[in-house]
Every structure is written in C-alpha cells, then in structure tokens.
C-alpha cells in the first residue's frame, strides 16, 4: 500500500484475511542500514483498499495501529466484507478496470457515466510521486550510485545502502548526463502508470547508454525505460502480472542468476516490453514470465561492452520472495569492479570523459 507504484489504484487483496498483524510504526533512522521509513514510503499510495475480512484487532509485537485506523489517518477509504474473488475474476476477464467504492447510501446513487471516472493512467503519476529535489543517503558508502526516482520503494534504497553504497536520489527527469561522472553506477526505480509518460527519461537514458559505460540497473518502470531506450516498445497488458508468486525463467547466466533456472518473484505491473525477435543489436532477453512469456528482464549482451540490466519484477521484494535479492549484490559488485578498473586509469577517465560529454 505504501509502494508508489500503486499510486492512483484501488487495491483489491485476493487473500481474504487482511490486517492480522496491524501496521508497524513507520519511522526509521537514516544510516547505513535504514532510509528513514519502515514501510515502502511515508504515505499510503493507493486510492482505496478492498478486502474480504479485515482484522479489527491485530496482534504483532511491532504493530502500533490497526489497518483501519491507519487508513483513516491517511484518509484512504477501505471496505471489508467483499467477495474479492468475484472482483478478481472480473479483473481477470476484462483487465484493470476503472472503479469506485460505494458504501451504505452511496450504493443507491446512480452509477456514474464512464467518462466521469477519473482515469489515473491518463496522468503522469511518476511526476506526482518522484522526489522533487535530489537527496543523498549513506554518504559514507564506498561507491556512489545515482538513483532515478520514478516512485522508488524504500526497500530498493535500503538494499543499496546495506550493500555499502552511497545513494543519490534524483527526480525522474533529472539531467543525469550532466553529473554522471560523479557516479559509479545508475539505478532506475519502479514507478506507477504508463512508461510512455516518461519518454523524456528514456531519451536521456539513450544518450547515457551510448556515451557512458558504467553499470546500469533498472527495476519495473526502470526496466521499461531501459527497454525503450534500447529501442523496444512498451505495451499495456490485459491484466498485468501481480502478486508474490510469479515464476520467471532466466535465459542468460549473469552474476547470481543462472540460465535455465526458474525464480519466484514479486510483481506489480500493467505495462511490459514486447518480446521481439531479433532483439535490438547489443541486447538480449534476460528473463521471461513462465506463464505468459512476457519479457521479465533484458540485459546488454556480453560483447556489447556494457553492463546494463533491467528486470520487470522486484528483486528487492518487500513484500515477496527473496529469490533474486542477490541481483543487488551483483549490481554493487559490478560498480565496485568498474571503479577499481577505472581508478587504475584515473587520469585518462577524469580528463577525457568530461570533454566527451559536453
């Protein structure tokens, strides 16, 4: 619910029993372990919540309030006692649907006309959730990573910080190319909505990718941006992939990932990259979804001279399985390796590269 990717959505939980363990306090320190919050962001990001059977009383040692009071505090409507399975079946058949929550007397009001519904996908949701100003986390980290924030989940930042990275979070459309040489790697985050709203970012990234050879890693929206920068098309899936049990098949071995292995992943996306044959020069599919064969990851080919990956799923989980969490380690190690490699030829890099980017 605090994941900015859910911005503007009415969340329907398939699991009927929700709120059992309450909601924990949402403040954490800023240090080399934490990034200020316990959950995925400061606020509830979704527009409304629909559940089968909410727990009015909760039980967990970390909990400070119930789901209901938390929603109330954030002014987010929530409804319980709903046949969520019936809604799921409807959504399965017709895909993500515009909807409204009606309780009590609301039900007797006439149903609004189709055009009266607010369609979140028509807006640039990324712009709403992305940070407005750059900020830094764990400045004492041993490598410097820039994060383009399309609606970042705190656990992505946590996962980087805990691997000893100094993280600079930039607004989604920030002109990264102007400052790129301060960084050992670039990370593109998850985010809500239609990636075509972020064409600007994709175009900037295209330049980065052609001119800059340091590691780049993208997740979810970030993956789609990388794909678009590489020349692939993004499209709206009928239903999307959601939940914590999406199996993906690795097609290439890289770092902790082994080709031919199936990983169980956490996902939440409506848009995906088209599986094209052949792939653009210098790129290859990294993962595919076992169920619908949608592209779940792309990477630069071994002989392209680049270290770029994107994955549609969420290796950082929270929630979800930790099968692919080591991809963060892979990314950070690649950045480290690149840094060591280039530090040997420090003079060359520092004198020649800025001039090339001007």
């Amino acid at each position, binding site marked *: 619910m605090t994941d900015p990717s859910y911005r503007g959505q009415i969340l329907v939980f*398939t*699991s*009927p*029993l929700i709120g*059992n*363990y309450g909601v*924990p306090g949402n403040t954490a320190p800023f240090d080399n372990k934490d990034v200020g919050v316990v959950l995925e962001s400061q606020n509830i990001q979704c527009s409304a919540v629909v559940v*089968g*059977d909410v*727990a*009015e*009383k*909760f*039980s*967990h*040692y*970390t909990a400070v309030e119930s789901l209901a009071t938390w929603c109330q505090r954030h002014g987010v409507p929530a409804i319980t*006692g*709903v*046949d*969520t*399975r*019936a809604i*799921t*079946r409807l959504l*399965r058949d017709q895909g993500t649907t515009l909807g409204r929550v009606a309780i009590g007397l609301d039900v007797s009001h006439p149903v609004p006309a189709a055009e009266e519904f607010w369609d979140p996908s028509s807006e640039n949701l990324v712009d709403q959730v992305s940070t407005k100003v750059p900020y830094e986390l764990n400045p004492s980290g041993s490598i410097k990573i820039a994060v383009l924030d399309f609606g970042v989940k705190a656990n992505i930042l946590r996962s980087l910080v805990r691997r000893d990275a100094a993280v600079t979070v930039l607004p989604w459309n920030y002109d990264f190319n102007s400052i790129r040489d301060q960084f050992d790697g670039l990370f593109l985050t998850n985010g809500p909505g239609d990636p075509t709203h972020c064409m600007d970012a994709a175009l900037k990234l295209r330049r980065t990718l052609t001119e800059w050879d340091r590691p780049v890693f993208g997740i979810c929206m970030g993956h789609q941006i990388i794909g678009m920068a590489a020349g692939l098309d993004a499209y709206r899936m009928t*239903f999307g992939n*959601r*939940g*914590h*049990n*999406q*199996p993906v*098949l*690795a*097609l*290439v071995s890289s770092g902790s990932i*082994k*080709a*031919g*292995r*199936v990983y*169980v992943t956490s996902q939440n996306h409506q848009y995906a990259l088209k*599986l094209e044959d052949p792939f653009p020069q210098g790129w290859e*599919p990294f993962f*595919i*979804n*076992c*169920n*619908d*064969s949608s592209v779940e990851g792309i990477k630069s080919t071994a002989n392209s001279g680049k270290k770029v990956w994107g994955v549609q799923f969420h290796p950082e*989980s*929270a*929630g*979800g*399985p*930790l*099968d692919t969490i080591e991809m963060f380690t892979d990314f950070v190690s690649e950045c480290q390796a690149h840094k060591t490699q280039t530090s040997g030829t420090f003079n060359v890099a520092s004198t020649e590269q800025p001039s090339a980017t001007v």
Partner: protein
Amino acid sequence: MSLSRLRPSWINPLIRLNLRPFHSSGASRFALAATRPLRAVAAPAVGAYLKEERHVLNSPSEIARKISAKVLPKLPRPDVQKVVVVGSGGLSIGQAGEFDYSGSQALKALSEEGVDAVLINPNIATWQTSHQLASEVYFLPITTDYVAYVLEKERPDGILLTFGGQSALNVGIELDRMGILERLGVKVLGTPIRTLEVSEDRDLFVKALKEIDIPVAQSTAVSSVNAALDAAEVIGYPVILRSAFTLGGLGSGFAENADELRDLSAKGLSLSPQVLIERSMKGWKELEYEVVRDGADNTIICCNMENFDPLGTHTGDSIVVAPSQTLPDDEYHMLRSAAIKVIRHLGVVGECNIQYALNPTSKEYCVIEVNARLSRSSALASKATGYPLAYTAAKIALGHTLPELPNAVTKTTTACFEPSLDYIVTKIPKWDLAKFSSQVNREVGSSMKSVGEVMAIGRTFEESLQKAIRQVDPRWKGFEVYIEPEDLDTALTRPTDMRLFAIAYAMFRKNYSVDKLHDLTKIDKWYLYKIDNIVQTHHAIRNAGSIDNIDHELMTRAKRMGFADAQIADIILSTEDIVRAARKTLGITPFVKRIDTLAAEYPAHTNYLYTTYNASEHDVEFDEHGTMVLGSGVYRIGSSVEFDWCAVTCARKLRDMGKRTVMINYNPETVSTDFDEADRLYFEELGYERVMDIYELEQAQGVIVSVGGQLPQNIALRLKKNNVNVLGTSPEQIDNAEDRHKFSSVLDSIGVDQPAWTEVTTLVAAKAFAEKVGYPVLIRPSYVLSGAAMNVVFEESSLEYNLSAAANVSPLHPVVITKFIDNAQEIDVDAVAHNGKLLVHAISEHVENAGVHSGDATLVLPPYTLSIQDMARLKDIAEKVATAFEISGPFNMQIIKTPVKVPGEEPELKVIECNLRASRSFPFVSKVLGHNFIDVATAAIVGQDVPDPIDIMKEKREYTSIKVAQFSWTRLGGADPFLGVEMASTGEVASFGKNVHEAYWASLLSTTGFKVPRAGSGVLLGGDITKPEMASIAKGLVDMGFKLYCSSPVVEQFLNTIPYVIAKRIFFPTKDKRKLRMVFDEYEIQCVINLAKSRGLSFTDEDYVARRNAVDFGLPLLNNARTAQLFVESLGAKIPLGGLRSYTEGHIPSEVKSWQEFIGRRA
C-alpha cells in the same frame, strides 16, 4: 523380468531410450490384462502433459516453450523400467492415511511414465494397493528383510523410499547400509540416501545446518545429573527436560536454573536411563514450510502453515492453519529463504517439510526438524493448495524438473510456481482418546496421539474453525461449551485433546479476556480475537431470542462466521429445520468457490470446490446434475481408510458407467479428496445442512450414503424425508436395521436367530434379565460416565459397578443388555444385494472368539474351520436378510456360531450385528477373493448393469489371507493393551499365504514394529490360566526351545504341572520401569504372552504391567488365547523353514509372492 512386460528383443538399447514413453505405455504392458480397463488416473491427473523427451517449459505460451527449450538444463532422466514403491503399512498413530494418498499419487506418476510399479504394502484397505495403480502388489511386511526379498525377486531398476512414511525411509536407509541396493543394482530415485541419513541423524543434521549458519533446536541426550547440568550450561536456561521411555511424558518438565534441573533430572533418570535436555522455547510460534526441489535446483515453497497451538504440542496434535496468519511479509520470507537454503544444502530431490520455532517478540527463529519425505503435513498442504505434492515429487524422482511439469489445476501453466490462497484452511486433529479406556493420559505434548484429522476451508478464520469443529465430531455444532473443566486454568495451560473447548468454557462462562487467555495458553491473540468474534455473535443471537428476531444482518453475520443452522437453533431453542427455512426465506445461502492455486489469476480446469457464506457469486455453473457420493469423513477408531477405498471405488465405477460424480469429504488424508477422482469434489462437511445445500445447488440425480461408513448413514433417513433421492437400500430399511427393536422383530419374522436381549431402564430390571439368561452378559449403556461404553460382565457385582459407578442407567439413559455366549466363534459376512436378491457374499472367520470387537479381530478368508453346512446356512441367512430389508447395495453381518455341547449337534448361528452399508472388511474380501464388491454394490445401488448372482465362496482356493489389526499402544502411554468389545485398533494389515500358518506369520510380521523373537530366547507367560490354550501354548514354546518365565506363583504352579514344561518365576518390579527393563534383559525376554480376561484395574496389576511393558519395550505381545495359539503354531511351521533367520541371499520365503500370483489374475 516381469512377465507383464513384452519388450521386442531387437530394439537397440540406445533407441529404446528415446522411444521409451511411447512403446512402454499402452496395453502391451499388461500381458495379464483384466477384462475391464484399469486406469491409474480417473481423469488425467494433469492436463496437457506431453510425453516428450525435450526439456521444455510447461507454458501456455508457444514462444516461452520455444525459448525455454534452449536454456532449460538437459537433466538426464534415470532409465528405469520397473520401480519398487515402499508403502507405509498399517495405519497407526503418527503414520496414517496420508501415505495412501502420497503412494497413490506416486503410482499415478509412474504409470503415466510407462514405468512398471511394484508396490509393497500390507495395508489391504488402501486405494494404492490396487492393480489400477501398480503392476504388482505385495501384501508383505515393510521390513528390511521382506523388501530385500521382493527386490531380489522382482529385480527392479529403481526404488522410491519417500512415499511410505518413516517405515519406508528406515527400510531404505538400512537396505543401503547392508549393500543390498548396490548389489542388486537398484537406483534410489529422488532424494539420495545420504540426505535421508542426514535428516534422520540429529548430530549430522545439526552439523549440516551449522555449515550454512542456520540456527537449529538442539537437544542433548544425557544419562547422569552432572551431564544434564553441563548440557544446560551450553544450551542456556530455561531448559526443558524430556524423559525418553516414560509413560505420558512422566518426569519431563521445565527448569529455570541449575537447582531445579538437579531435582528434575534426578527424578527423570530414575524412570528412564536417558533424558534429553533442550532449550525451552515455550510460547514460541511453530511454523512449517513445504518445499519442493528438483534435480536442477529449482526450489519452491508450496505452502506454509502455522500452528494455532504454540510450540510444545506435536504438530500432528496441533490445530493448524494455512497459510500462516500472524506472520508479516518479512518474517514469512525470512523463514522461506531459510527453508530454501536448508533444502538446497541437504540436497533433497522431491518434496520435504521443514519445521520452525519463531520467537513471537523478535525475529529469532530456529529449525526444529526436516522431514526429507512426504509427510502428514505435505498431504495437508496438497489438499490446502490443490498442488499435488506427492505426484510432483514422483515426477521429479523420475528426472523431470519443475518448469517442465504442469500446474495440475490450471493445466496450462507450470508447476514451478508458488500457490496463492484466497481462503484459509483450518486443520483440527481427531484424538478419540476416550475409546482407549480411562487410563490414557489426555494431555497432548511432544508425542502425537491423534488418530486422524479434518480440514475445513473458509474465507474467514471463524468460518473455517467452526466447520472444522463439526467435522471432527458431528455431535459438536460449533465453538460452544461442551466441557466444564474443574481446574480451568490448568486445562488452559496444559494442552489436552479438549483445550479448544476449555477456551470456550472460559470465554462463555467465566468471561476470561483475550489477554488472560493469551497469558495462560500463549496462543497468539489474533486467533483469540477471532474466536471472540464467534462468542460475541453467539451472544447477539441469544439476545435476539427467537428466529423472528434474527434479521438479515445478524443471520448473514452468523453464517459468515460459520454458525450452523443447528447451532443457531440450539442457541435460540428452536430446530434446525425452522432456522434453515427462515434463513432461506431471508435469501441467505452459501456460495460455491473453486480452489485454483492462483487466487483466480488464471482460469482453472478442475472442480475442487468448497462452500462459503463470505461471497456474492458462484465460481461454477450447476449444469452437470451428477450422482453424489458421501465419503467417510475423519479417520477415527472404527472408521478409516477402508471407507475411503469404498468411496473412491464407487465414484470410479459410476464414472465408468458414464455418470457424472460429485464427491463430498473433508479428510485431507484421503484419496477421495484428490480432485481428479470425481467430476466435482466438494471439500466440505458431511452433515445434513451442507449435504442438502450441495444437493439443492447441484440438483443432483441422487445420493449414495452406503459407501462412506456410518457417518453418511446417520443422515440418510432425514435426507429421504426431505425429498432427497437416496440411492440404494431405502433409508427406512437402514433405520429398521439400526433400531434394535425393529431389527429384532424383523429377524424373528424371517426365522433368523439372535442372542437374547432386552432394553432396561433400571438396575433391578438389568439384574433380573441377567439372572434369567445367565451370566455373562454384554451391556451397552447409552450414557457413559467413564471408561469404555460396552462391557462384558461375568457376575452381578460387576453389573452393579458398571451400571452405577461407570455409567448411568435411567429412563433417560436406557441400557441394552444382551446374553453373551462364551467361547462362541464369530463370523463376518460381507454381501451385496439388488432389490432384495443376494448377488455376492463373502464369509470370513474370526480367530478370536466372540467378545473381541470385529475391528480388532483376526479375520481368515476363506474360512478354515467352517463346514460346508455352516457355509450354506450362512448364505441362507444372508439371503433372508437381503430379502427382508429389500437391500440394494452393500451390507455386512456379524454372526456367532455357538460351541457344540453334544457331538453331532448342529451349532446355532445367531446374528449379533447387521449394517446395511459397506463395512470395514469390504476391501479385504474384494482383494482376497479377486472380486470387487463395491463395483457390484455400485451397480446395484444405481440399478444399472447389475451382474447375475454368483457364489464365489464355492470356488476352491489354494491360498488363505489373514487380516490382523494394527494397534498404536506405544503412542497411548498408560493404556492397557487389552482386546474387548470396544474397538482399539487404529488400522489393519493383511497378508497371503499358502495356508493359515504362513498367512498369519506374514500378516503378524506386517504389523508395524513387530519383532520376531530370537531362537531360544525367553517368553513371559501369564494371565488367565483357565484358558484351555494356555497349556498347548506353553508346551509348544518349550518344544521349540524357548524359555518360559512368569511373574505369578499361580501361573508358575500351573505351568509346572504340564508335562515336559518348566517355567521360572522371576522377580517382577511393577513400579520401577528401569529395574523391570533390567529383568527383561537379564532373562532375554523377547516376547510376552498374557491372556487377558479383563482390563487391569490398577497400574500395579502384574498382568497390566506385563502387557504394557511389552509394548513400551517394543516386544511382541499376544494377549488373546486363540491368536497366541495360532502364533505358536505358525512359529512351529516357520522355524524349520528358517522363519527366525534374517535376510539371506537366495532364500526367498514362500510367502513372498505377489497378489496376482496368489489369486491367479489381476483383479
């Protein structure tokens, strides 16, 4: 090589490898093909399973399949043609019906692959022991020796060890250790032996987990007080001390510091040579994860489960929910990641289960244990998720990887995924401890005591909990007050089989708060809050007062919390029918939902269904109008896997006849709840309310109530009265047979004899009747205060005791008294009739005399002492009864044959019991005679393709089969191992032989844990010396070189008067188990024969001590004169043939023959 496989000799082995799935499947495999087609899979277990050698992702997407073919590892699949599957033997506490399910699924998988499966399992009542599933079946002991003989005889290429519980696992490890597998070239498929060893050996296991930094629960075995203190220093206080060999955990306890531990360990060590010191994790949460891993290292979690009861209660004795409810995402995934790490490290290939303890106030956890095999929990997980774990594990053992296998429910997607559940399941164990005499300790703890379990599906915890409560015992209507514990706080702190109801009492009557209950029970507050919702709703209904005051909102609320109509009726003093009618008037009816493993994300093609009130639409259409089959419900004493065999057989027969089937059952240990055994499976309650709901929704053609044991029969008449089309014998006739008065007058009218009986309401009348017919008499009180319900009494004083101290007799609680005929022989008749005409019947003879419950008795088929005249008269009785009750379907009678006083006189045959339904012995007689009684019964019930009558008892047979009861005395600390009119066994086994002695030998050895005494060892003899068999038993044992010992001077004197018999009386400590153990060791006593006349009255009764300790020391116990006699005779027959010799290469005993070889065809 088996006869049944025809392999053209010209096929080059290399080519054969590629062709295997094609040429070895199909009809040619069965050279001895039966006349009707045998199918392993009722409907395809999985959908578009393509038998291809290519390594391809099972995906609906063609591109995904194409791409995956390039990257999926090309794992070589073991080249096996014939595989031995080791079963688990008789059902016992801790190893029950779940292994019928897992073995059956493994056999389905093998048969799909075109592999010949050879099954060893003496449990004749199981579904897996059928030729539909296995090429060959051996009804032989699950022991190293017998499995080795079968391997030597069958020469398989592979063996599956993880589908038959602990028994099969132990045998496998031992066979490997003895080098037999290697010598015979038998590959262990699936999880390697080394992994099994590591998971079984505590030291190796702890070491293995330490290598990967996974915390593990440590337990140190010590045999001195000082060692205990040292161990506690290492582990850290508080510690728990467990005594290894004591009654009901006697001497176990918690110690907070060294002083407490010193006292406790001194006490514990006086009772047991060894005690275990463990870290106390009292109050921690207990969780389980079911893990699947394939040979390519893909690892997934199928399901996780959370125990309602905190750590300390065996998971088999805990209430369990799935998925876990009180774990946030990070805790869930911490344990999930650890599970994957552990299972990869151990190298499991297939399925396994990992148990955790989790500190409720931190993220600290530790691993309790890993079961590197299919288990009870995996059966539960399979049923809870719809993921066929055993089937998948078998496929993995055959070299398939998860991505290549299909999701069995959606059929189009891959098996390499993790199910998501949009419902909650609750499991509650069934204990049945009251059945085992009052001596059994009711506390539940580290050792499992339950005999079965139920699983209920709902969309709220309240709904699934209340459903489950009703499933455990139909007398319970929901979460209500059923007991009033004297010491409530103790009843809450120390878990017993009734703790849930102690909580009910505390909440309803004593107003205990959730906080207080949590302090006492350590049960997570979330569960208690939910239970409190039930309590509050109960109060709201009571406050409404009458049905008219229950409005739509309150009725909806109650039904959504799982209240039954009958429960609501009780609260407002109304009737179920009135509540049901009012509810339907309000338009409140249940909805049917489907279990599809993916929370509706992908369409499912199976009909695995449940009902719920927490919904607003159905998942299915009701357009099939199938025939409903009611299953057996929970396994309990007296109703077990045999009724599952009946239900599955019936449903399959209906499908063969072209009918759509609807199965209802709620027992997760069964095959009938496999979603591919019927067109629609309702995992639901079997009470009147739910069966009516489903009947009305489905508009079913009819309901079959006679293949699921007594439970469905109980509602038959009510269904009929409410216009349900009950198929087969009329429910009025069922009622006539069950009502003693009606039954008796029917028998009188057709000239069939029965023992004298009466129903009395006063003690005086009881005495008068007993006086008239003469003692002994059998009493059957309708209201029992303590102890067993039924008893044989031999004199007036015990009649008085039994009807005053132990049971109540009053006009409200009448007692049925029957003349008990001493030394009478008992006979079981199983039969099928159609429209009152007998179609087929089987006559089995009991070894024990009447007085031993037929479920505990030893059955011989064909009979070995009955004359041709007896057989004809028995058939005549069966025909008369069939006609009198207009039977269409199965029925069973127990008949006694009175001893003949004057030679030449015709013995009397009296009917003592008659049930117009399938009985416990239906699978036994069907398999022994090679004639499926349920197939015939199903035809008779629906009146289609009814076969002509046949007298199969006239056929001469060159073999005998004997069914022996499987007891679980070891698990029931303190219980007297005594056979009486109340049934006590938990399962049964049956073996074949060329004669009675060979068959008895094999079947007795088939009972789990039976150890053959060494030649020349000691036998402790005792008990009732008035039994005529005592002398011949003693003489027989001495002749064979056994040494006789006894504890009582009376027995000593008696034995020593027998010519050539010498018996020595030994010092016999009745209170000190340790000393007794030393006495047994000193005299090398390896067998106990104690002819019990009645239950021991005190814990120091010598006969009780002898019987009980035979069980506790793991020695064979014979407690009945007739079976002891047969045992001695069988020993006499077997010893010259090397019966006491362990496995010897090249000397296959004559009983090692397959079912098919014995009966001459594939039945």
